[in-house]
């Protein structure tokens, strides 16, 4: 459903992404793993055009797109089929939790108020926050904010959700709640690309793994094969270092 080839991006002459390819099929949960500074977040931001790729080709829903040359209008049209969950939530701070979810339905998608409200409430219900719809972001914990952000993403019924380290900014005791919500989405068949450091989670929830290091996709494989038949010394040592941290 989403296929990217030859994605390149550099900042100030520093190559951050170097000819990255990836494929996401409908229902896939693609976990993007790898050490910090490896280009994972930049990759995800390029996928939603928050950063403009220098080179690269994208095929989405059968439509072929030249990533650097896409017009503003085409990007807007593309984004109506995607959703993004940020590491730092980025909820609209002047809107309540419910309004955060309805905003994308009312304004760009011109849905009626009643319909938007119903759909938003259903989304908040899904993340276990139906009773906090009137709360402002500042009145919610980090974990709750991130769950509202996930509800905001789900409510627009996207073809794919991009999640950028959704639990990295959270206190350890709040991580579980957010991961549970993402796991439930995966079980519902939601297509997701998720940048994460939660290797155990990736192992259990993702269907495929993309391993990024120094701007290159070192490996792309189905999850079971990635973890069980890993031959790359670089990746093995990375996974071992995380195991130590977990233990």
């Amino acid at each position, binding site marked *: 459903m989403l296929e990217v080839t030859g994605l390149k991006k550099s900042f100030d002459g520093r190559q951050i992404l170097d000819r990255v390819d990836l494929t996401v099929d409908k229902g896939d949960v693609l976990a993007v793993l790898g050490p910090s500074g490896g280009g994972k977040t930049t990759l995800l931001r390029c996928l*939603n055009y*928050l950063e403009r790729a220098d080179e690269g080709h994208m095929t989405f829903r059968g439509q072929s797109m030249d990533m650097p040359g896409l017009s503003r209008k085409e990007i*807007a049209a593309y*984004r*109506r089929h*995607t*959703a*993004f969950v*940020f590491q*730092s939530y*980025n*909820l*609209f*701070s*002047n*809107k*309540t939790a419910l309004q955060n979810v309805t*905003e*994308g339905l009312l*304004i*760009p*998608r011109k849905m009626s108020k009643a319909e938007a409200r119903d759909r938003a409430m259903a989304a908040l219900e899904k993340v276990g926050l139906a009773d906090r719809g009137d*709360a*402002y*972001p*500042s*009145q919610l914990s980090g974990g709750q904010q991130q769950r509202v952000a996930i509800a*905001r993403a789900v409510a*627009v019924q996207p073809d794919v959700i991009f999640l950028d380290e959704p639990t990295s900014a959270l206190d350890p005791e709040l991580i579980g709640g957010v991961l549970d919500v993402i796991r439930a989405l995966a079980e519902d068949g939601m297509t997701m690309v998720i940048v994460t450091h939660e290797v155990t989670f990736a192992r259990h929830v993702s269907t495929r793994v993309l391993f990024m290091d120094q701007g290159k996709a070192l490996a792309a494989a189905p999850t079971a094969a990635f973890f069980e038949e890993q031959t790359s010394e670089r990746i093995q040592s990375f996974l071992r270092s995380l195991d130590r941290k977990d233990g």
Partner: protein
Amino acid sequence: MSERLADILISSFPRILGQGVMVTIPLTVISFALALVIAVLCAMIQIADIRGLKQLVRFYIWIVRGTPLLVQLYLVYFGLPDIGLMLPAFPCAVAVFALNEGAYCAETVRAAIEAVPKGQMEAGYCVGMSYTQIMRRIVLPQAFRTAFPPLSNSLISMVKDTSLAANITVMEMFMATQRVVGRTYEALALYMEVAVIYLFFCTVITKLQALGEKKLNAMNGGNVIRA
């Protein structure tokens, strides 16, 4: 206090306050409202980086901030007639105050918009909103909360700056006081009287500011100001 002085103070009070209500307050309110429009426009032009216009805005702000308000008043009221542009005193004062304050407030508004985290814009884009929609619904309301205290500051300054309009024959509070002083020679008492009225006006604005901030905080879930 002598009986004569008390009489002068009492009889001049409604006269001075009257000019305050009839001239100083309208002059301030109209000029400030226009200044806000100018400020938001100039800030938006700079933020949106509209070529050509942005340079024009920077030039305007440079000129206005780099020259004294009194000189600007003289230029427009006494200077422009030389090239055939003659404005009555009150509209002339409004124009100068609005343009002057507009330049300062433009910087306040620009700073407030720039202080809204970039992630708010990105999140707006990601739910499918356009630049204009995000600005109007997400960024500007948040920026307004940030800009509100410094803008109140500007308003308070402007109340007092309107006394400069006396120099171009606008019969506002200060000029009314000068007239009474000219007649009675009670400078100390009368200038204190008018100072107290200015202080009262500014106190009212200060109270309104506090109320406004409270309201704006409630609209943001109290997230901006936190002890």
